[in-house]
């Protein structure tokens, strides 16, 4: 577990860089329980630093169907924030709004200190936001290495003529991309497959490739849409660890949509629960687990006249 557990809902995980500085903890190990004074510093840091992501009153509808209804969300730096809810609750839609693929009917998205009515998708990489997709968005015609290198495309400045002619500048950029990609590939244990065509690999590996591609630029905000869907238990454990490492080693803030409640409870610092487009709960895993509205809508308790909902 990564965070200090107290009743105060505003506590940040200790791996927030600012807090780390103040408390003098090494970057690699963020799991030190601070003494009382340090807790105060962390709380102050939480109030001073703007949230990495803030959603205000996001509403979205398609034709007559309401996908999101006045949803608000704050994600603090270094958090692992889960969004859960039944199918059709609007979770993916929310992520799509954050990545600018959908334009909300009203509301704002705040990324760091920038506020948007409609997030410009093509500038996400520049804002150090990265995401994965529910239905796997790999480039099947590229090798694993090439796929991960694509995660750094926003840094490439040399034009196509330079690339064709092989100027030193172009070569340097290529080498740098390659090195960073190899590092991310190593981080996710994909090195053996790196020259293989991404489209030919098994599903579990493909999911890891997508994560590597999202991580390679060391994003500040990482949006993961059902990263563990369709995986075996072992694969889930491995990937959960990778996600945790991403936050711990790369310092990313993570927003995670996931259906596996066990994983969610274990991995996240705070959870938001959506149902039919509205947020019905928001808090720590313990708080959410005990929330009646959440249980009724999603987690499910066997009533006399209903069948048990198993997740």
């Amino acid at each position, binding site marked *: 577990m990564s965070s200090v557990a107290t009743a105060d809902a505003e506590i940040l995980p200790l791996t927030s860089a600012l807090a780390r500085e103040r408390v003098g903890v090494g970057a690699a190990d963020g799991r030190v329980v601070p003494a009382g004074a340090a807790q105060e510093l962390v709380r102050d840091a939480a109030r001073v630093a703007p949230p990495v992501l803030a959603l205000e009153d996001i509403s979205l509808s398609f034709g007559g169907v309401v996908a999101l209804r006045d949803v608000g969300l704050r994600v603090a730096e270094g958090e692992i924030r889960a969004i859960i809810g039944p199918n059709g609750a609007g979770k993916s839609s929310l992520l799509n709004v954050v990545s600018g693929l959908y334009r909300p009917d009203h509301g704002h998205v705040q990324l760091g200190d920038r506020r948007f009515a409609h997030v410009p998708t093509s500038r996400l990489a520049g804002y150090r936001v990265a995401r994965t997709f529910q239905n796997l968005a790999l480039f099947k015609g590229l090798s694993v290495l090439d796929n991960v290198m694509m995660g750094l*495309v926003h840094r490439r400045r040399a034009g196509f003529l330079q690339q064709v002619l*092989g100027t030193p500048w172009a070569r340097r950029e290529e080498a740098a991309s390659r090195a960073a990609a190899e590092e991310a590939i190593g981080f996710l244990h994909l090195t053996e497959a790196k020259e293989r065509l991404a489209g030919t690999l098994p599903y579990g590996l493909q999911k890891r490739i997508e994560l590597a591609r999202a991580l390679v630029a060391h994003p500040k905000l990482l949006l993961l849409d059902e990263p563990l869907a369709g995986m075996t238990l072992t694969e889930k454990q491995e990937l959960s660890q990778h996600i945790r490492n991403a936050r711990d080693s790369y310092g990313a803030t993570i927003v995670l949509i996931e259906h596996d409640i066990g994983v969610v409870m274990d991995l996240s610092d705070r959870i938001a629960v959506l149902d039919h487009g509205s947020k019905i709960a928001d808090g720590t895993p313990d708080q959410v687990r005990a929330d009646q509205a959440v249980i009724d809508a999603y987690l499910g308790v066997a009533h006399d006249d209903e069948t048990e909902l198993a997740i």
Partner: protein
Amino acid sequence: MNKSVPALSTKANWLTPGRVGVAVLLVIAYGIIPFAGSEYVLDAILTPFLALALAAVGLNVLTGYAGQVSLGSAAFLAVGAYAAYNFNLRFPELPFLVSLLLAGLVAAVVGLVFGLPSLRLRGFYLAVSTLAAQFFVQWALTKFGWFSNDNPSGVIDAPTLTIAGIPFAGAARRYVFSITIVLIATFLTVRLLGSQSGRNFIAVRDHEIAAKVIGVPLLRTKLLAFGVSSFLIGVAGVLWAFAYLRTVEPAGFNLDRSFQILFIIIIGGLASIRGSFLGAAFIVVFPLLLSRLGAALLGNLFDSGVLEMSQRIVIGGLIIGLLIAEPRGLIALVDRLSAKALLKLRRPERAPIQL
């Protein structure tokens, strides 16, 4: 099998099988064929093959690698041919190679203009809009006499190829010119496809939304694909007019020609440079084989009408068959067969022990 073209290796090991193959190819291409090849083979088979192969490489960049379907490629053949003709005619001081390059650039610009819709359109809608290029260019070249120096019905007679004062008149010389241009152009294209730009093409093709999210510049990437593709096809058009037919008219750049180039890349293999050459070879050689076969089997019954129609049926059937059985084209078939053959070579059968 890694389909993405790898970045050029900086390995110290110089003599890879690939390079030896290329060297052999060059020796044959330059050292043997121009001298041993008959006039007929050079004129009617190799030169058109080279022009079509280059056009196919161009279309492959756009459709195979970048995933933008184009049905109007013949328009750019025409633009290249007519542009080179006009540059050559109106600026006789310009060396021909410069006219060639300028013609390619003109084709690229036209390609960019007709490629702009690709920003809003996808799939069928884009394909339909590329047809606009096809019809418009054909019409403009026929309607406005200026393009053909006021020759009747837009026909142009390309003058003799002259590079640096040396005439490239005979079949052998025109072939050498063609293969040189094609080799250089293909080499540069391979470099482009192996670079980040090439990766961007494939990304846009495979998952445009993800590409947008990770920061691939969609507008620039698509326009680059259209521009490079049209440039290559334009240069192929110059070869078509100056090295092969030497007399061309707008009707020769019709929809059938566009489909022919599209069929070449489907048959040869989408997103495969080698496939483009294989497909072009097939398209050029196949009618000749078919007519020989038909004449042998059916004798007099097999006139040119029957030949043309049988050709249509076989090509159409082949397209369907390939799309069903081997969508990666003939080149995938060839690769599979040669891999099996190589495997056999490396492990020679041992003679059974005689007791």
